[in-house]
């Protein structure tokens, strides 16, 4: 007999049980299993809060995955082309073993996970190498810590050194011997260093030899091996440097080098190549015609050159105009590939994806309809119509040579810059993403399928940054794209109004940072702030603006220059400098305003912007010109604020974080035991517990329970290594929400335990934490279920979370009792008796009793158990002669308009089944 719990009502179900005695026996075992599943617990006794939290904290990922993440390299096991590895820039390496239908992360727990290259040893495909530190040289790339090797297809990894190379563009494995590996290292992006060039190992990575080095400003941006002779390699040297206000792409160090003896000797190739300064160069060698090599060269007269004699001589095949069309931002792209079966067909990747069948004379676009900004392409050597493309929007697969594409939308690798939330029930979360606009989605979809791509709503385009819903009208959202492309969007109809402040033509234009801050005043939802080089205030929701500060930056003209040069001059806005990057208003007292800048100023006004004081000079130990990444005005004292600085753009990866209690006159560092490797993006103070702080660093999230005297890593059980760019604490629900730059949004539900956790708590034998109000949500499946191709984020566990701490293991039959207002125990749940922190969930249901006081035997699922009515309950746990109690309020599902009287009738009916069905006793 087939039984579907969803298909029958409660009364039918009880009939069903009564008529199937033997079936009920089997159900008992199932009940025990399900009851045990209702208790979500984390064992082990803690020595320190860190150990305790490591075993307790479990994050849930809610996506979004619609857009994937910036994919910069792809490699495939050629003999098994359904096995694909993809380097999804800031999130690590993902693997598919089914032609891209499903993916799972294989490189995500290591010290750093930003990846520039992933390479499979085709002669021994379980050997996989990863070069960390993305090589796209964009303003938001993060650093790596050398090369990693796996010998088991990505299950485990070992760091094989070259840590200071920081950015790796290519790894080339000798075809005949997988122990011979070449690494092209870009070196530090933000400063000079000598650990860059080409490295070689002949013992599988145990030892390395630097076989090509140009100078401390020049790295290797491309490296290819001749397909017919593994002793011949071509290397593209790239002189480059990022400054906070400028990207230098090109210089005397750039050029093409060749070795014919496996790197013992190199010569610079010049014959037929352009003279003068070169920039970034892409290289490709033909597999079908040995000796054919292409070079895509950034130059004053740029183009594509082809050699047919192993690089000895070159001829231009592509004119300057065509080059500029197909490689419009050389520092970011400069990727060229040659068809493995046709030496005249080449692909060039940039904003568009282009193919030429005549060696580069003419190109046509291929990537219609897919996300632009292409970085990686894999061409199937046995079927050149099969292409896998990596771009800023993830991965796309084609089986018809690029005519049509299948987008991969189940990799949760969104690169969040900023977070927002509203006060809907359940609340929605918003985020701005690298090159993927602003999005909003539910913290809880109330859909049993989870939080799916279809639950996410596109808010605005461009690179997305700040998204701030109006706290009183959730359908109004303020959001901006790069350089403060500020709009006010009404989600009811999707129309947006541009509200960016513009300088009068009689004044110099305003300078807005790439990631320009906006803020809604904590005192008035119509008062909006945004900042460029000035702070602007609007009191009418952005319809008019008042400049309420002078220029708060250094206004250093030498840093207000073209963003990229000297060869290809470019202004995308990423390098606009001398701007305000952080703003905060005191929640305690209106008009206390803080502004931090990218050029090292920290300004405070105590009179709504009339006067300002630059207090940065009062901060001890802060390097000059440090970029202010975040200011958090305290929720408790008007003069207290926290400020974080990010100096990695000056090649300094240390955290800088300070607290003032006197409006910036004095500061103390609260860096304490934070790791020295990992700059800080964000600091937040808990709105209820002033000693509880959170920081997001380039490699994770930390909490302090003692106001910055010490820090605890909040990675917990399942948070991958990832940059945490923004943190929010939902003030109503007390959830901790983090925006990661590479793995989307994660939520730690109900952090009440963190607000109460302290020495006293840990000294107790048993501690029952305050229980958050529980919303009685009704969950349903709201659509067709998908196979493995869809992404499904996790909803919170439905019900009330009862969190407790045990100092030592307990024994005996100890139960968590839930009592109603009449003092009657309506549910008993098992208590986890192992020492440690635990959370047991009650699903807000109870098993009705028969009139003889005994409970019915039912499956504790929603269909079989009865929902409790909203109201107040008591949680009671008796251990020995001590009884621990906490109140619990159950709130109604706001989507149902049941009157309290009707709710009571429903609950009462649930309890009275036996009166109508005497045979059930």
């Amino acid at each position, binding site marked *: 007999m087939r039984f579907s719990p969803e298909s029958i009502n409660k009364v039918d179900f009880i009939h069903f049980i009564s008529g199937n005695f033997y079936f009920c026996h089997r159900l008992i075992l199932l009940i025990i299993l399900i009851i045990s599943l209702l208790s979500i617990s984390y064992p082990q006794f803690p020595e320190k809060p860190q150990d305790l939290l490591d075993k307790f904290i479990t994050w849930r990922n809610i996506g979004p995955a619609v857009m994937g993440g910036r994919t910069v390299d792809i490699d495939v096991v050629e003999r098994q082309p359904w096995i694909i590895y993809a380097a999804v820039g800031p999130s690590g390496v993902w693997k598919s073993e089914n032609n891209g239908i499903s993916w799972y992360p294989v490189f995500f727990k290591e010290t750093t996970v930003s990846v520039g290259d992933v390479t499979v040893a085709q002669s021994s495909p379980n050997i996989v190498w990863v070069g960390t530190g993305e090589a796209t040289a964009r303003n938001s790339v993060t650093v790596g810590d050398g090369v990693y090797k796996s010998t088991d297809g990505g299950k485990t990894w070992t760091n094989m050194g070259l840590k200071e190379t920081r950015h790796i563009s290519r790894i080339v494995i000798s075809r005949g011997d997988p122990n011979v590996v070449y690494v092209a290292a870009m070196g530090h992006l933000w400063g000079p260093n000598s650990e860059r060039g080409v490295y070689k190992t002949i013992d599988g990575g145990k030892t390395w030899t630097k076989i090509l080095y140009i100078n401390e400003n020049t790295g290797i941006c491309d490296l290819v091996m001749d397909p017919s002779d593994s002793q011949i390699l071509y290397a593209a040297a790239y002189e480059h440097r990022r400054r906070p206000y400028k990207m230098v792409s090109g210089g005397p160090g750039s050029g093409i080098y060749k070795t014919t003896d496996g790197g013992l000797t190199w010569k610079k190739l010049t014959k037929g190549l352009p003279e003068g300064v070169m920039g970034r160069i892409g290289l490709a060698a033909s597999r079908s015609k040995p000796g054919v090599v292409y070079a895509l060269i950034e130059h004053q007269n740029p183009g594509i050159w082809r050699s047919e004699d192993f690089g000895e001589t070159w001829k231009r095949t592509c004119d300057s105009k065509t080059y500029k069309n197909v490689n*419009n*931002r050389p520092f970011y792209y400069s990727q060229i590939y040659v068809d493995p079966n046709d030496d005249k067909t080449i692909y060039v990747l940039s*904003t568009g994806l282009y193919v030429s069948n005549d060696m580069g004379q003419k190109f046509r676009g291929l990537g219609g309809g897919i996300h632009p900004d292409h970085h990686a392409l894999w061409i199937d050597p046995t079927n050149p119509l099969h292409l896998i493309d990596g771009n800023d929007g993830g991965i796309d697969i084609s089986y018809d040579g690029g005519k049509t594409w299948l987008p991969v939308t189940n990799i949760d690798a969104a690169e969040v810059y900023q977070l927002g939330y509203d006060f809907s029930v359940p609340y929605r979360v918003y985020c701005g993403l690298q090159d993927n606009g602003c999005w909003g989605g539910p913290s809880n979809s109330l859909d049993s399928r989870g939080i799916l791509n279809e639950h996410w709503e596109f808010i605005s385009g461009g690179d997305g940054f700040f998204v701030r819903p109006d706290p009183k009208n959730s359908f109004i959202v303020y959001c901006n794209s790069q350089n403060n492309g500020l709009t006010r969007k009404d989600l009811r109809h999707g*129309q*947006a*109004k*541009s*509200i*960016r*402040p*513009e*300088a*009068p*033509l009689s004044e110099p*234009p*305003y*300078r807005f940072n790439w990631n320009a801050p906006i803020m809604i005043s904590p005192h008035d939802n119509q008062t909006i702030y945004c900042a460029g080089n000035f702070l602007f205030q609007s009191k009418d929701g*952005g*319809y*008019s*603006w008042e400049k309420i500060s002078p220029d708060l930056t250094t206004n250093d003209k030498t840093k*207000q*220059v*073209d*963003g990229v040069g000297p060869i290809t*001059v*470019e*202004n*995308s*806005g990423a390098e*606009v400098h001398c701007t305000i990057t952080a703003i905060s208003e005191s929640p305690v007292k209106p008009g206390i305003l803080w502004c931090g800048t990218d050029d090292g100023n920290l300004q405070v006004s105590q009179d709504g912007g009339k006067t300002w004081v630059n207090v940065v000079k009062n901060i001890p130990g802060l390097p000059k010109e440090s970029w202010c990444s975040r200011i958090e005005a305290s929720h408790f004292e008007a003069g207290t604020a926290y400020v974080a600085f990010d100096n990695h753009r000056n090649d300094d990866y240390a955290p800088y974080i300070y607290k003032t209690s006197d409006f910036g006159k004095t500061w103390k560092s609260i860096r304490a035991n934070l790791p020295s490797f990992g700059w800080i993006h964000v600091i937040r103070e808990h709105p209820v517990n002033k000693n509880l702080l959170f920081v997001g660093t380039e490699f994770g999230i930390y909490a302090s329970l003692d106001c910055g005297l010490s820090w605890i890593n909040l990675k917990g059980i399942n948070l991958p290594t990832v940059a945490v760019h923004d943190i929010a604490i939902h003030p109503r629900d007390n959830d901790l929400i983090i925006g990661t730059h590479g793995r989307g949004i994660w939520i730690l539900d109900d952090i009440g335990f963190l607000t109460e956790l302290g020495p006293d708590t840990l000294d107790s034998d048993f501690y029952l934490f305050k229980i958050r109000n529980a919303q009685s949500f009704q969950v349903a499946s709201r659509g067709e279920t998908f196979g493995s191709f869809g992404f499904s984020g996790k909803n919170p566990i439905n019900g009330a979370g009862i969190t407790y701490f045990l100092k030592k293991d307990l024994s005996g039959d100890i139960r968590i009792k839930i009592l109603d207002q009449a003092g009657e125990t309506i549910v008993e749940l098992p208590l986890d008796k192992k020492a440690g922190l635990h959370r047991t969930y009650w699903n807000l249901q109870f098993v009705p009793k028969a009139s003889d006081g005994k409970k019915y035997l039912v499956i504790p699922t929603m269909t079989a158990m009865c929902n409790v009515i909203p109201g107040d309950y008591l949680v009671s746990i008796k251990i020995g002669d001590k009884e621990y109690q906490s109140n619990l309020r159950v709130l109604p599902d706001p989507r149902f308009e049941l009157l309290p009287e009707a709710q009571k009738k429903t609950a009462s009916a649930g309890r009275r089944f036996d009166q109508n069905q005497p045979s059930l006793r």
Partner: protein
Amino acid sequence: MIKINHLYAKALTAVRNISRSLEALKPELNKISDQKQKAEIEIYLDNLCKNFEVTTEIFRTEGTLMGLSIPYKTFLRGPINIRLIALQQSVSSFPGEPTTSELSQANEISEVVLKSIDKLNNFIQKDLDEFNKLLENNGISKIQKPALVTLENR
């Protein structure tokens, strides 16, 4: 805004046509046998072109892909043609009152565009006329004068 956009588009066309005509003229000057006379006209043409470039600067700022090739200062404020289009779109596509910022921008941009159109019309009426006379006196075909940029002559 729509009127200003219309005028801007007309001015842009006129400027492009004049630029092409002036460029096409340069080889024609080789027909002048008197080298002294030729040099004088070349100098005149050179100055005229410089004057034309300055006069019509705002009709030359074209937005390219992502504004990447726009100089830093132009990028900060935004090329005027892009601003004009964005402003019209922002005002007309949202069923609500324009923002204070939009209104002040509209006034400012209108003023700038109208001033530049006056200068362009002056160039067409006066400078081009004078230059055409000079060309005529030297046996060179006149360059075609575009119509004045106004709302009337559609």
